[in-house]
């Protein structure tokens, strides 16, 4: 259980750190022209990654953490 908890926490922390890093990149590199006019695939993929990470940290990670908290409160048979 402890190992699983660490994996969950590490996953959430990594996603959050990557989100912060990508957000910082886009804060310094205005992507509007690249996306709307030049339709650069690389920029689009980076932005998609940022949005996926954000969806993960806001939508999925809280559920993972809550599940871990509840699940660890009773003993596992395995």
């Amino acid at each position, binding site marked *: 259980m402890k190992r699983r908890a660490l994996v969950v926490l590490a996953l959430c922390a990594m996603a959050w750190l990557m*989100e912060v890093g990508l*957000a*910082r990149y*886009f*804060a310094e590199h*205005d*992507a*509007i*022209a690249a*996306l*709307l*006019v*030049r339709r650069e695939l690389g920029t689009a993929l980076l*932005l998609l990654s*940022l*949005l996926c990470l*954000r*969806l993960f940290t*806001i*939508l*999925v990670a*809280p*559920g993972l953490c*809550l*599940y871990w908290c*509840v*699940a660890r*409160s*009773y*003993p*596992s*048979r395995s």
Partner: protein
Amino acid sequence: MPSLRAALQGSRLRRLVLAVGCFALTVATIPRFVCGRDADAFFDGDSAHQQALADGVIAAIAHRNGPDYYRTGVARFDGQSAIAIDQMLIMGVSQIIQLHPELRAKYLPTLRAVAAHLVDPKTLAYAAQEYPQHGVVAMQRGEGHAYLGYINLALGMLRAVDPDMPLQGLHDRLSAELAERLFASPTGLIETYPGETWPPDVAAVAGSIGLHAKLTGRDRSAQFAAWAERFSRCSVGAGGYLIQRVKSGGCQPLDAPRGSGTAVAAYFLSFADPALAARFESALQNQGRRTLLGFAAIREYAPGFEGNGDLNAGPIIFGVSVGATGFGLGGAAVHRDREWFRELFRTLDLFGVPTAGAGAERFVVGGALGNALLLAMLSARPT
């Protein structure tokens, strides 16, 4: 909780139920809380939030070198985006000053500098390629120059907080010439460029004339009532959405009724014809509103229409567009619909990715253009 433990112990099915329950609980509560925590501050005009966003936009354009902010090589995009950034920055900051007059001294020098850039014909050199000259320089009979609606609206907002602005004469001239064209048009429309008529641009023209009338104490309500009837007959399509483009000289649609154009028109027209603005706002809520778990977005195409959008709409995902949703915040703010504003704001916060630093805040996905637009929308108030 021994009974709960016993019930859950060991069973895979029960673990699955537990997992689904945890996800359902968190998805239904945490995202709407996290993403909506700043919504009320913006809706209520909190000075710190508004200043942070305004300072973020001002910092973003501070590095501009030359007339354009973006240099894509596409003259039309580069020029129009520069105009939009200048216009929305002036509108947003002026709206903030109207609510917090103590900030006037802080922002006025920036506003005047941005306005000088906005009216420089070099900023939208594209206009002078399409017409013999930029409309700021001169407008000949029969020429529409509806792109001037954006410039003139910004001048009006600046004048509202800076009655002695040096560009007063230009504001008066543009308003008079645009009004003459708009109110004489049998369709209620004028061209943006030769052969191009875009009703959302015309809404900006109307808004700028309405704002000028308010500032100068002139009553144009009868003219606007008659104009609104002609404009609606020609430009309002399915579901009460505004048609994005019509054929010049008539009312033949060249594009679908679109959410991005309708939403920005609802904001612009609040300066000229609040009743028509309210009709567009109502159409967006009745026909375009898509909500899920406290998040809302606005569909780009009216029911029965489909398409791939354009630069005005931005990306379209599952039928809802970034442009319509972003501009929709302005209408929600103007019409003081707190719950609608909150729902749209949560979506902005989730996908816009706000970041703060050095006293400034911005939505990193929006870039300078997106943040300038959001500044105007998030600080919008009833006129």
